[in-house]
């Protein structure tokens, strides 16, 4: 009827959290409680606390057919809840949503896969779970197998598959669902680079066919590359809907206090992060003061404070550094050094500080975002917060500051330059009268030191 794919109006979702807080003050209270006990039992209220949070709070937006809409927000901002409601997994507490067409999700890869069943059996089962008809599965079967590249093992139980094969097969089924609306949540978090490439490729295919895509990600460069428009969620509310570049800029620079440190609040730490418990992230200057603005010409320390409630083997804790536009500049882990990793293979429970130094003369002026990742490679990602803290870099004294022009690019390294004056004759010597007096490594034997600083 219309060109609308999704319409969401005043959508809200309330969750009950925490432990039961119940105090009987009077006899009458207790009696009422006993009387209402069977009713509360049947409603499941006995096992749940009375404390509630609004995971989504009055969200309204529309998505037109064929649009690719990005959804970004910090941990606990309500992104997953929004997707769960739109894919009908859970009901909204208030509000209304209207979905035109079948919703498929790349989040669901491998849902219902049973380790004891063969690849062939799992394709049939998974297809049915995702809502394909049996005829549809049969028709696409060969295509799915070819796409997954596990032809040889199609009659082997998937528990014998490597994790890569498993993921490829699971993705192949999900990718052949052909939904009118595709929901992609954090595909980039799982699988290897090849798999991620495939996911993103599939997503842009879907978009090109004029279908609607909702793309939820923490990866700002993927958001920028794949979406035109993006909504930003903040604590369950819709903070902004804007062209993606603008939304990413907003997301990466807003919401950070100008403090140079970030303490994670309980609602920012997902329950599955345990036993890793992030406490704080700080940016420190050379005097170990917490600062919002650091100098480009001085080294800067980034400090992650965390607690392990149980020992973790193979843990690496590290940072991402992003520009304010969301480009990833680098990723670094505290056990990147092979020897260090072998020495601290198993980290006992306790309180930790992982600290690294960003060398002087590296970053350009501007605003930067630090993210945190704690994971065990190929085993588990404990915690990730792609944008925990922002800080500014002041370029005073940095190379090239004598020109008032802005230097583009996130880094501004101090490089050693040598300038050679090569004469037509063949670089015999440089004129002593030459006011520039460049050092050269020619006939004069490089006696003079580079004097770049005087230029």
């Amino acid at each position, binding site marked *: 009827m219309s060109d609308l794919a999704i319409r969401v109006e005043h959508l809200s979702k309330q969750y009950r959290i925490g432990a039961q807080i119940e105090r009987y003050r009077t006899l009458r209270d207790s009696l009422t409680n006993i009387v209402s006990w069977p009713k509360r039992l049947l409603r499941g209220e006995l096992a749940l606390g009375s404390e509630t949070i609004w995971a989504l709070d009055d969200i309204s937006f529309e998505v037109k057919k064929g649009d690719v809409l990005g959804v970004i927000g910090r941990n606990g901002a309500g992104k997953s809840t929004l997707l769960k409601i739109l894919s009908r997994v859970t009901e909204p507490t208030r509000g209304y949503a209207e979905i*035109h067409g079948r919703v498929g999700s790349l989040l669901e890869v491998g849902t219902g896969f049973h380790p004891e069943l063969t690849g062939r*059996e799992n394709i049939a089962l998974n297809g049915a779970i995702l809502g394909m008809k049996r005829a549809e599965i049969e028709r696409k079967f060969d295509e799915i197998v070819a796409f997954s590249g596990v032809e040889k093992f199609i009659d082997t139980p998937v528990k014998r598959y490597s994790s890569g094969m498993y993921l490829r097969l699971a993705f192949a089924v999900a990718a052949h669902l052909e939904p009118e609306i595709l929901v992609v949540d954090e595909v980039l978090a799982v699988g290897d680079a090849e798999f991620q490439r495939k996911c993103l490729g599939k997503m842009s295919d879907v978009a090109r066919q004029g279908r609607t895509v909702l793309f939820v990600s923490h990866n700002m460069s993927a958001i920028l590359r794949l979406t035109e428009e993006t909504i930003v969620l903040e604590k369950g509310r819709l903070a902004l809907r804007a062209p993606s570049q603008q939304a990413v800029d907003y997301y990466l620079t807003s919401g950070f206090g100008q403090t140079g440190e970030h303490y994670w609040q309980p609602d920012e730490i997902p329950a599955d992060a345990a036993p890793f418990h992030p406490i704080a992230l700080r940016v420190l200057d050379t005097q170990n003061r917490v600062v919002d603005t650091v100098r480009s010409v001085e080294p800067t320390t980034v400090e992650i404070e965390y607690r392990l409630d149980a020992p973790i083997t193979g843990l690496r804790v590290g940072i991402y550094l992003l520009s304010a536009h969301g480009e990833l500049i680098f990723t670094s882990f505290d056990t990147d050094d092979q020897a260090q990793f072998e020495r601290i293979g198993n980290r006992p429970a306790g309180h930790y500080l992982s600290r690294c130094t960003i060398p002087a003369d590296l970053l350009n002026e501007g605003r930067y975002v630090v993210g945190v990742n704690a994971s065990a490679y190929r085993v588990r990602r404990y915690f990730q917060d792609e944008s925990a803290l922002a800080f500014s870099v002041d370029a005073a004294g940095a190379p090239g500051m004598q020109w008032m022009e802005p230097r583009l690019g996130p880094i501004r390294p101090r490089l050693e330059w040598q300038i050679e004056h090569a004469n037509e004759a063949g670089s015999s010597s440089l004129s002593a009268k030459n006011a520039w007096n460049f050092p050269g490594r020619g006939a004069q034997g490089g006696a003079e030191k580079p004097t770049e600083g005087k230029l």
Partner: protein
Amino acid sequence: MSRTSTSKQANTLATEEVIILRPTRGWAALNLRDLWRFRELAFFLTWRDVIVRYKQTVLGAGWAILQPLINMIVLSVIFGNFAKMPTEGIPRPVFTFAALLPWGLFSKALSDAGRSMLSNRNMITKVYFPRLIIPLSSVLGGVVDFAIQFVILLGMMLYYQIYPTPAVWTLPLFLLLALVTALGFGLWISSLNVMYRDVNYVLPFLTQLWLLVTPVAYSARVVPEQWQFLYALNPMVGVVEGFRWALLGAETPPGPNLMISSVIAVLVLVTGMFYFRRMERTFADMV
């Protein structure tokens, strides 16, 4: 290639459906139409449960036979040799086995359905489908075991030279009653289990007690007349009596007791479905 995809797309656009999501309040409709649309999924899940059940076991489907056989031996020894319960002239093994079949179907359905929501947690939290399918398919999964055991029962009857009564045609009706009972209680237990894991601990005791108030190891005629009405409130009484009556010609022919059992079974099923539907909306948040 491109042509097929565009025509497919045109097709989906033409038949596009609009899904409205809004909070449901109070008692939701059962939405049986949706259930029907997902019937293939019910089939697939049943099939998965059956296939997976005996994978990586030495005896495989032999367990389906062995379990009730061992049960039969235990019950026959205890109730025959020690308690000396009468069997109306039917050889005790057949008498007990004929009751163990529907009982096994029921108790297995109960425990499987009870656990089903938790063991399928990753599906429930990720994809939409009518949740009723999960307990439904775990109940249906027991029918395959039942069929295998039924062949054994026929073999035993042949061995003891017992021939089915003319009323054997009613057997499917009693099987249906067993399934209705199992699904009804299964729905209650599975939805309660989502909220209270206590159910996991209560269920084994419940099943054991239930076995004692069901005429599996003894004949329902042992129960005194004045208690018969109360006794029949257990729908499995009607089922087990009916099985023995239709197959072996034992027990009381169906009468008021069966009526009571059937009414209770249907009542439990209908309330179970509505309760399940009501709780369904929060399953994904709580499971």
